[in-house]
């Protein structure tokens, strides 16, 4: 039935999607920034890692570079767009996502154009090379744990508190003395950086990259995941990622020809998005209340 290798493969994909959904959560779920071009960050991280790795850069360095590159691009994008109202921000980021994809497709000398880049070296760390899927799974889970810890740590910090207040009511947050622009910028940059981690992992797993992996479909798939998992709920995002990857791969397994399979996936995604948005817009699993920590602290003093 399901071989161990297949299971490991699915888990790797699920872990990568988990990292991506946590990253989207940081911008959309926690801060309320409608970044509809998130797939572009995934792509920028992936291409950065791929290009550097093909040029001989060690794994840890190309991941770091991917994160920095994503952060930088996020800052550049954020500069003009974060002043825009919700709808406009959504459209602007959507457009930027498409422009990014156009760059991936057309800047052939750098990105390999539509043919992409192949033969990306395996990841290796401290002399250990992650060739086998099992080993790679270990590596990705480690990355997921770090990303998760950072996301949750920030969420439960005063910084995260401000982000949530921006999501709830930006004007009120401003009236409480918070420079919301600065905070939104950081949220976007961190969100992008995390996507960069996922991008770097992705190319070292698949050892190949092309522009078709970074479409709007991915962004909305991630959006569905965090909506089902509960906006702002990182654990929910991970669970939902696992669930959806399982379902998606399961669909593929049924063996429909791609001409039907691909649009069918798109159809299901659309229907699910529609249903979730209309019936349960706050997500199926709401955010966990932040309670005892604070008051416990006071009692502890």
């Amino acid at each position, binding site marked *: 039935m399901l071989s161990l290798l297949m299971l490991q493969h699915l888990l790797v994909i699920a872990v990568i999607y988990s990292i991506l959904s946590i990253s989207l959560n940081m911008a959309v779920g926690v801060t309320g920034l409608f970044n509809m071009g998130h797939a572009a960050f995934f792509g920028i991280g992936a291409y950065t890692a791929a290009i550097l790795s093909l040029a001989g850069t060690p794994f840890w360095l190309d991941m770091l570079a991917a994160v920095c590159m994503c952060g930088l691009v996020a800052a550049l994008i954020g500069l003009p767009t974060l002043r825009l109202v919700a709808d406009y921000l959504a459209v602007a980021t959507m457009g930027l996502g498409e422009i990014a994809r156009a760059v991936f497709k057309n800047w052939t000398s750098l990105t390999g154009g539509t043919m992409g880049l192949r033969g990306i070296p395996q990841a290796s760390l401290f002399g250990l090379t992650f060739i086998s899927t099992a080993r790679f799974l270990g590596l990705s889970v480690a990355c997921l744990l770090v990303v998760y810890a950072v996301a949750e740590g920030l969420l439960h*910090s005063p910084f995260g*508190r401000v982000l949530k207040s921006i999501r*709830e*009511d930006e004007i*009120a947050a401003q009236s*409480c*003395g918070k420079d919301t622009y600065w905070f939104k910028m950081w949220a976007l940059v961190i969100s992008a950086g995390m996507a960069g981690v996922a991008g770097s992992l992705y190319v070292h797993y698949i050892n190949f990259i092309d522009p078709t992996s970074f479409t709007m479909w991915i962004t909305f798939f991630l959006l569905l995941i965090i909506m089902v998992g509960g906006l702002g709920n990182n654990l929910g995002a991970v669970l939902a990622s696992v669930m959806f990857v399982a379902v998606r791969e399961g669909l593929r397994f049924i063996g429909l020809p791609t001409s039907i399979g691909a649009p069918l996936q798109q159809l299901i995604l659309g229907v699910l998005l529609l249903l979730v948005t209309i019936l349960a817009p706050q997500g199926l699993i709401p955010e966990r209340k932040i309670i005892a920590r604070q008051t416990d602290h*006071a009692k502890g*003093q």
Partner: protein
Amino acid sequence: MLKVSNLTKNFGGLLAVDHCSFEVQENSITGLIGPNGSGKTTVFNLVMGLLEPTAGQVFFRDKLAVGLKPYQVTQLGIARTFQLVRVFQKMTVMENLLLAPRDQRGENVLLGLFRPSLVRTQESDSVKKALQLLELLGLSGVGDEYAGNLGYAEQKLVELARALMSSPQLILLDEPAAGIDPILIHGILEYIRKLRDERGMTFLVVEHNMQVVMNLCEWIVVLNHGQKIAEGTPQQVSNDPKVIDAYLGS
């Protein structure tokens, strides 16, 4: 404490505030009243930086405070509440309050993530202060409720508490009695007076409810059509023919 000088706001032809000048004394509860559309909330918005004045200045503690962004105004020491209460609905009451103090080191990304002892100390101090305020305002026990689940009057008190958490010197209250059961209004007024007496706060209150104003404020500024038409004690203002005219005529 607050001096508004020749403040003017022109909305493309509509003169909402017209060369308005008045002062708010330290440790006072000053009222800003006027018939509908007289420009009271616009004055608030101008002081708080939500709108840019067409002309005129605002001085806070003798320092120029015009053309600032809202967060900068708050950082100077002015807090405000809103006419239609704006608490953060899906955050707990405690989170609402803990948001407000200024200069929180934990709002820095790295410091927030790693939470060194400095941050933790600030947090627990804020928690203590928040709990005290909740008790002062009769809200102990709701700290861990989502602010959106509270009744309207309680939400208004939460907003007031949140404003206080930033240790402001001046608080702008935008219609604190609006939408509140008359029975509960008395309680809110008590708190405001307590805060003025025990903590030396200064209040500028916009209010429609005449009883509240006359009861609460010791000095009143009256606006009509964006201009100041009268100023004085409740006695003086309620007997001023210009004021009576403005309200009857509107």
